[in-house]
């Protein structure tokens, strides 16, 4: 256990938060006790929790290797209690490919933001998907560069104000918001491709199911699973968490429509 984690474990012990006969919902073993550095209301934390729960429920902690991006989730490996590797900005799917190719029987997933996956790492994303690498890619689309302070992302909506599009994204100037998931769904190597969100309890449940499917298909060696999670970035959208979820619902989801883009064909 890392020094820092030990400290937080102790704090939690002392406060007896977890010691209760009435615990109905607990932290899965696949999450560490390190408090997450994400801003209040940020979707990253929920997405982490769902992935960790699925790994715990499938009982594959000892067989799973995660790849963290460069972006707000750069410290993902501080929160997942599994073996993890960092990747250079945009290259997580290549790193995941390297791991999976030498350890084909392990579960490998990458976790990437929109700048990471759909701008600087577009090449790696497309080709990893096109090779049908037997991994799971989790794509966190918050329409912005969270970590670097709110610059335009490839997925920023038309008209969206960011620090590098201070007058709103002018698509004639800066190009159109990129629906990379629709593009990915066209590739024959991709087995499962879906778009979910974590802004409501129902959506959280659907998102978990999608992540579960991704790991399951990997177990069955079906090829690549791609799960986009449309999320918020209250800090750089300059909104409260509640406002950001409302904005997400009213602006992001009409453009990035939730649902499956590619589902396995029924095998006879």
């Amino acid at each position, binding site marked *: 256990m890392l020094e820092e984690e030990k400290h937080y474990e102790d704090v939690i012990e002392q406060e007896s938060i977890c010691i209760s006969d009435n615990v109905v919902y607990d932290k899965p073993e696949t999450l560490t006790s390190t408090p997450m550095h994400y801003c209040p209301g940020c979707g990253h934390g929920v997405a982490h929790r769902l992935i960790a729960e699925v790994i715990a429920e499938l009982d594959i902690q000892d067989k799973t290797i995660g790849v963290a991006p460069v972006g707000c989730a750069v410290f993902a490996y501080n929160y997942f209690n599994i073996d993890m590797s*960092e990747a*250079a900005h945009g290259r997580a799917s290549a790193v995941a*490919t390297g791991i999976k190719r030498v350890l084909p029987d392990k579960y490998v997933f990458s976790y990437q933001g929109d700048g990471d996956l759909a701008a600087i790492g577009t090449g790696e994303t497309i080709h990893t998907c096109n090779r049908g690498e037997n991994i799971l890619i989790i794509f966190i689309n918050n329409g912005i560069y969270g970590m670097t302070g709110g610059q335009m992302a490839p997925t920023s909506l038309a008209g969206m104000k960011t620090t590098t599009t201070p007058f709103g994204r002018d698509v004639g100037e800066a190009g159109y918001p990129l629906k990379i998931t629709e593009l990915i769904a066209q590739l024959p190597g991709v087995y499962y491709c879906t778009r979910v969100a974590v802004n409501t309890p129902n959506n959280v449940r659907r998102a978990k199911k999608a992540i579960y499917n991704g790991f399951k298909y990997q177990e069955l060696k079906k090829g690549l699973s791609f799960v986009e999670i449309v999320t918020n970035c209250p800090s750089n959208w300059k909104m409260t968490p509640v406002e950001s979820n409302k904005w997400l619902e009213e602006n992001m989801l009409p453009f990035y429509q939730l649902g499956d883009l590619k589902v396995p064909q029924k095998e006879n």
Partner: protein
Amino acid sequence: MKGNEALAEAAIRAGCDAYFGYPITPQSEVLEYLAREAHARTGMVVLQAESEIAAINMIYGAAGTGKKVMTSSSSPGISLMQEGISYIACAELPCLIVNVVRAGPGLGTIQPSQSDYFQAVKGGGHGDYKLIVLAPSTVQEMVDHVKLAFELAFKWRNPVMILTDGALGQMMEKVELFPHTARTNEIYDWATVGKPKTRERTIITSLNIQPEKMQEVNLHLQRKYKEIEKEEIRYEAIDCEDADLILVAFGLVARICKKAADLAKRKGNQSCSV
């Protein structure tokens, strides 16, 4: 054998687990030879990546599992890899990177050159890191250096570069190949292979956001490089004891110098050595 093919054959025989690379002249025979030979013989993974950037990052992932992995390219491709090499050096992972140098700058030419010398020996990418660099001057050394490179990479947990060039890569010479070493399944305590309940998780990272931690890592790396310099410097000195004039060279130029010193001796200048 042709230099590039001999090097590829040596990688198979050294028990290499995986190769990730991208075509570029004068290096492509490495990938081609491995694609033809490796998998069937040892089960070695051989993957043509979509770019050198992808290749080096595949190396990063695979090296983190503790496997013996390598890539090869030529100068422009090696430039593209520098960010990844810097990550690998900081995360202290073993791997082999082969640079079959061609002349530059820019797209340059496919003719041989030693113009990547400084890039290779001073680090190459961002940050204070260094590679272990081996420079063969014969096809035989192209072979022998592969085995040595993997040994050094794992001994020091550091990327090792074989700095060769287009002439050595393309020339044919007689070689003696070493016998096959089986691929191993050794599991290192620093490797990401999946966390059993019995141990803490492993994390491969080069991120040291606290300045104190960054300094500590840098001091550690510099100490390591000093030790490597002390222990691992290799050179061949031919009749240098009483020489008035010593030619110092590496790689292809070393054999040209040998010849020049021979000619000088034959012309009566006994004091020129290499």
